[in-house]
């Protein structure tokens, strides 16, 4: 148990350090003055001097990196070139939106995918299996943003039931409940489209796992004992297929984060991915670096969460035996 966790946390820390290092060096290998990627030439001389001090730009590279790591860990990202405000102030309000989009998409698509996958495995050749196979192959080759554009065209233009853009209505509704509903109304199409694109590959994977598991001897044993079918399906077969399903969670995560960036752009959501794009297009380097870092951090944290779930689901880890991963 201990070795599992120390390895996982150490791995996450290494990836985090790598993301920070990539950030640090990427924005310093640019042609031209290094300082110009951290300090806007339009800042006043006093502000420039202050930023130089804060980032220790006159110090050697090694010292600079240490300072940089500390600033990243305390969410002190410097000042945005575009808005001339601290980057974290801008990002703070966006993180919950991205988390809401990512979280709802991940949970809903995995739940739907798992359910359909199990159903498809139970009745081979049935209608569910056909749906699963079709949606899986669609999600593999259709660009997410194209499907979303079509959905937007259908449900925001032809049949205007959903908003065309934004995370909330302007002006904001008055009461708390109306605000929540408004937020969900704006979230439904983006998150729904991610679910639509995501559940197919889940379902196929779960189906293949379940088909294999259902052919095993202990299932035959459970049937022989006369257990109810649903109990065999969920408590016996699915339970033993759960750890590899959680592995898929880990594998799918980076793709879903990438998809969220595109989704936020398509639906003009007030999120971190859209901020990253706007910052890159506006050559706002501190903001772009910070947004990239936050996306990396979100991925790493969800990775750890999935690891924790894996540890709970796999008894070999719970009792502390070493698992070759």
């Amino acid at each position, binding site marked *: 148990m201990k070795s599992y966790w120390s390895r996982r946390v150490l791995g996450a820390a*290494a990836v985090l350090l790598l993301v920070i290092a990539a950030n640090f060096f990427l924005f310093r290998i640019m042609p031209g003055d290094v300082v110009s990627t951290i300090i806007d030439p339009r800042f006043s001389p006093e502000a420039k001097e202050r930023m130089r001090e804060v980032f220790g730009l006159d110090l050697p590279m090694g010292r600079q990196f240490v300072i940089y790591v500390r600033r990243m860990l305390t969410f002190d990202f410097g000042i945005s070139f575009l808005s001339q405000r601290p980057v974290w102030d801008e990002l703070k309000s966006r993180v919950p939106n991205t988390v809401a989009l990512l979280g709802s998409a991940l949970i809903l698509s995995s739940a739907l995918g798992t359910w359909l996958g199990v159903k498809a495995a139970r009745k081979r050749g049935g209608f569910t299996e056909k749906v699963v196979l079709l949606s899986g192959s669609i999600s593999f080759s259709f660009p997410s943003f194209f499907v979303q554009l079509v959905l937007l065209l259908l449900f925001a233009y032809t049949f205007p039931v959903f908003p065309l853009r934004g995370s909330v209505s302007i002006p904001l509704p008055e009461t708390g409940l109306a605000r929540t509903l408004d937020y969900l109304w704006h979230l439904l199409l983006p998150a729904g489209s991610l679910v639509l694109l995501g559940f197919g590959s889940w379902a196929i994977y779960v189906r293949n796992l379940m088909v294999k598991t259902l052919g095993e001897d202990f299932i035959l044993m459970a049937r022989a004992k006369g257990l109810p079918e649903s109990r065999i399906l969920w408590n016996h077969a699915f339970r033993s297929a759960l750890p590899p399903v959680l592995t898929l969670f880990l594998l799918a995560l980076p793709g879903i984060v990438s998809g969220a960036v595109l989704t936020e752009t398509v639906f003009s959501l007030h999120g971190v991915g859209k901020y*990253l794009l706007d910052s890159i*297009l506006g050559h706002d380097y501190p903001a*772009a670096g910070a947004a990239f870092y936050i996306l990396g951090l979100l991925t790493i944290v969800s990775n750890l969460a999935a690891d924790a779930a894996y540890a709970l689901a796999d008894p070999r880890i719970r009792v502390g035996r070493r698992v070759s991963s």
Partner: protein
Amino acid sequence: MKKIPRWSFIAFLFILAIAVAGPAAFPGDPGQTVAKPFAPPAWSGGDAPPPFSGPISPSSREITIEWKWDAPENLTLKGQLTFDEDAPVKLVWTTAEGDSFTLASFRGGRLWKVDIDARDMAFKTNLGIPPFANAASMLFPGRGLHILSLEGPTPSGGSLDLTLPGGKWGLLGTDQRGRDVLSLFIVGVRVSLLVGISATLLASLLGLSVGLASGYLGGTADSLIMRAVDVLLSIPILPILMVFVGIWGKGLWQLVVILGLFSWMGTARTVRSLALSLRESCYVENLRSIGARSWYILYRHLLPEAMPVVLAALSLGVPGAILAEAGLSFLGLSDPRVISWGRMLHEAHGFGAFTAGAWWLIVPPGLGISLICLVFLDMGRAIEEMADPRLKGGDGR
């Protein structure tokens, strides 16, 4: 056994043919304005006026236009006429109501060059209308027969072309700048193919060499390389690509290199596991025992063994690269001068295709991307089956 070539190979050849010969088969500059912005396709445009063009030449001195719609966006008249005699000529426009305007006149000479655009201020001043009024609506006050005629001596050669942009256009309509979507679509296939194939070639080369080295060397090098692969596979690639493109620039070749640098991991893994098993095989052991060098074994024996796997990975990797290119272009992180399917979707999204309801700007490039991805996926599977016939007719893949 039946020996029917897979549909994807035929489709691939077809796409290749379009990419190579398309622009020649559909002449005309894709950057040219052909109709009004967001003109729907001709077959779905309904009551909108079709585009019109007609010549004034020695054989036809008059153009009669039967106009049944609202005034067109614009009117252009371009070309040159040659005359034998030195006498004044003029171009007269007669509207359905019977009013007539002199569009242009010529005092006489041998060669008359005409270049009229109804939006031109000088032209409007000549007609005697305010510079900010719409000249085309002056010339088309109502519905009926409008006549453009050449008055004066008959020209001996040359011709003038009268063009009225329509409210609907071609097979796929026009975009926000009035460009023909069909020719943009056909030009766009080139970028997808070029970027997709060359980025994947680069990635496969990288993956092949990294995988062979990792699998054959083993030990610390192997575990280090595989750790790096794990890390690269666990962080979202699109944000990295965005940052790279933002820093290095949006050129086509930069894009190819960046995509190649970040998509070799899958191939490396597959090749590594192959090399790992081959390394322990008897024939490699025999080779080593008769004194073959590592380099020789890698180059002459492992590389050919890995080739089918790499070919399949190449074909299966192209969709990823195409989707990544399309995604970056859609985000606006591509060279604005290069027309690609992703760029078309970007412009559709950014320049109001939604408020115009212009589905013809969104559906063709999106379906194009999907289709080309499906073709490469199927080709990859076919190559995999050739390399490993056990896969054929397996479970529900």
